């Protein structure tokens, strides 16, 4: 077996970077939800795919630029996120049970998607679906580049909010010691609803990225669960930049493993890292 050329390795690493960015973007919402709200939200993947299909529908039949669909998708999913958190809060669902309850919700969403769009493969033919930019010897596909840009922008935005705004600091305080945060005026319930809405909106954005870069089929949503959770845990719960960095690390190592060894070995990277992390690192991620 010949060792791949430098160009091939670089191209692999680059595609790993892009897919890693999407892992990070998906992971951002999961990480915020788990770290700050103590809700393990499997429905995040359902929402992302639902948003992807919505984007496909609007951009495809409406001939609208896919990125413009964000104007509708972001507020819609924000509202959905608020609704889900309201339900979970009302029934005082524990973190483990939230995993199960959101799994049920995901199954419902999957069925809904399949009912409307069938299980056939759907590919959004957008203006930049096939476009590539050439950088030296490497090709940079435009949809993936859009994803990377969005992932970077949103991760840093969330980081800025958490670190520099009053509300962001209030959220971090709530996650650490909710009763004392309340004692200083932070409204725990309202904050939770708001944050859940934001996480769902982030899922919506990830969905649009999925739509422009991938072929869609409903059962695919589960394929992302394992890898994204690995990125979330590696990056640290409640972190804004963590999932992105971890996602990219995972994406690049998977891609390089695929290039050097064989594509079928690549899943082992993220999951082995996850297992080792769980066993060896003190405290929760």
């Amino acid at each position, binding site marked *: 077996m010949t060792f791949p050329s430098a160009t091939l390795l670089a191209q692999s690493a680059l595609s790993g970077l892009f897919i890693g960015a999407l892992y990070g973007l998906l992971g951002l919402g999961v990480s915020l939800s788990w770290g700050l709200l103590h809700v393990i939200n499997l429905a995040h993947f359902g929402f992302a795919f639902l948003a992807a299909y919505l984007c496909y529908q609007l951009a495809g039949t409406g001939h609208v630029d896919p990125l413009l669909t964000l104007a509708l998708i972001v507020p819609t999913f924000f509202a959905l996120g608020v609704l889900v958190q309201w339900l979970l809060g009302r029934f005082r669902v524990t973190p483990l049970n939230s*995993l199960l309850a959101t*799994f049920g919700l995901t199954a419902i969403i999957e069925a809904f998607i399949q009912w409307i769009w069938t299980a056939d493969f759907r590919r959004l033919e957008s203006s930049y679906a096939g476009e590539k930019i050439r950088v030296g010897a490497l090709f940079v596909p435009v949809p993936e580049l859009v994803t990377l840009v969005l992932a970077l922008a949103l991760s840093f935005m969330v980081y800025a909010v958490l670190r520099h705004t009053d509300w962001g600091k209030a959220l971090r305080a709530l996650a650490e010691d909710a009763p004392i945060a309340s004692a200083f005026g932070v409204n725990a319930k309202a904050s939770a609803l708001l944050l859940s809405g934001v996480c769902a909106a982030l899922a919506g954005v990830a969905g649009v990225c999925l739509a422009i870069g991938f072929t869609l089929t409903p059962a695919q949503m589960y394929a992302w669960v394992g890898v994204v959770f690995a990125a979330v845990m590696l990056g640290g719960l409640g972190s804004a930049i963590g999932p992105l960095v971890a996602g990219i690390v995972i994406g690049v190592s998977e891609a390089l493993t695929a290039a050097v060894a064989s594509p079928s070995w690549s899943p082992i990277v993220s999951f082995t890292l996850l297992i080792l992390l769980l066993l060896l690192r003190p405290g929760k991620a």
Partner: protein
Amino acid sequence: MPWLGLPPFYASFLYLVLHWVVLATSWNLLCGYSGYFSFGHGAFFGAGVYTTATLAGTWDVPFLWTLPAAAAVAALLGVALGAVVFRVRRVRGELFALLTLAVTFVLATVIANTPIDGGPGVYLSAVPLPTLAPDPAGTFYLLALALATLTIALAYAIRRARLGLALFAIHDDEDAAEVMGVPTYRCKLAAFALSCGLAGAAGGVQALFVSYVTTGSVFNITVPLTVVLMSVLGGTRHWAGPALGALVITVLLYAFTAADQAIVGKAAVGAVLLAAILFVPDGLLGRLRPRKRPVAEVTADIVAVPHALPAGAPLLRVTGLRKSFRGVRALDGLDLVVHQGEILGIVGPNGSGKSTLINVVSGHYRADAGSIQFAGRELAHLPAHRIARGGIARTYQIPRPFAHLSVLDNVALTARFGEARLSREVAEAQGLRWLQFTGLAARAHVLPGELNLHQTKFLELARALASRPRLVLLDEVLSGLAPAEIDEAIALIRRIRDQGTTIILVEHLMRVMTTLPDRIVVIDQGRVLAQGSAREVMARGDVVTAYLGAAHA
């Protein structure tokens, strides 16, 4: 075996139901009973599938022989994983779920990339099927029936046995269970091994049923999530819960698929899970409590404390005990001797180290340095359940009863896992005796949540005493009680001493500490400050300063 003579279609359907009954019930053995939710059941199922596929498909081993092998491989895998993971204290709850999910994908990748599968999958259509029934569907039905019967029988047996009690205690409060004498590591490992082995066997049968296996079809997320769904729906605490859940979901899914509404079926299942978590988190059978047996006549006598030393001999000797938490020295070279048959009172200002002392002696925490000699044995580095077996029991300042076990089961647990290792009947009889001693006999079959604070404290007391400990550590057992209840408790504590148990009593209530204990020890800043009778000690200048500050001395 019941051979119904059904047409192949029904036999196949029944096979499917029984197949899921096995998977869900086996999952529940560890995960439902003990609360260690695994998302990796698919890994062990898959291990069984591929063991049979390799042995029967590649090496021509007769099919029926591959089934025990499939079970063994899966069980070994489970034991290997559990041996590592159960040692890591913080991997519980959601983290355990994620870790087991990750294991599934790692195993799938390994299998897909090695000659076991290698990618294209394994064909098993050429493997001869034993003719246990006139047609293949019937054979599979009978195999699944046998496996399902075995699995359910095991689930029932475990539920009634010491292991089941241990798992339920672990579910409610693993650390308290360990301190009460339950060997938590071994119990979890045993349940996990059984759980995985049964899943492996089910996998072995399934391999031939589908006759063509690929890693994608075997190791996907369906199996782990479905078994969780079925068990949660049916009720994870009941031995028949997962079976009921499996039946309901399989029938439901089938009904929708047959009516050409598979998609709606999927949505319906999701809705059912969501509704179950929100409205019936205990599951359909979760509300079922075992029939309230009439409270039996208390016939047992109190078993004597084993190996009692002569009165006054040193029973517990603590030397140079040290324990720090994140830089704070809770115990700073503490020396103490407790004599057989005495009631020793321990007092001290807030933060002086009293509770830490109890926690270290009972094994809840490991000491950083120092020695704890109990009746000649060194305890300082033993796991908590061995300390409990050695004859030390404790109560908790904020009561920690096992919330889902009845009052009687709470007490019988320590009797079953204590030094004497009593059988179920004897342990329950002893338990009743101790409930009578503490005045709770009439509440034997209620859940601890239905007791008030006073009764809960007495439950803690009965639970501590049921293992016939030589030494019992009472951590603020009187706090929160009304004056009349306190007098009752004091009388009880005296009777406990009269029965042969030595007592260490940590308390703040000074009016009790001046009358009840034989001797008082004052602890301040992790060390013994003074010892003697209450009157002498509490009048000493340094003790007064420790409590009230300098000006009052």
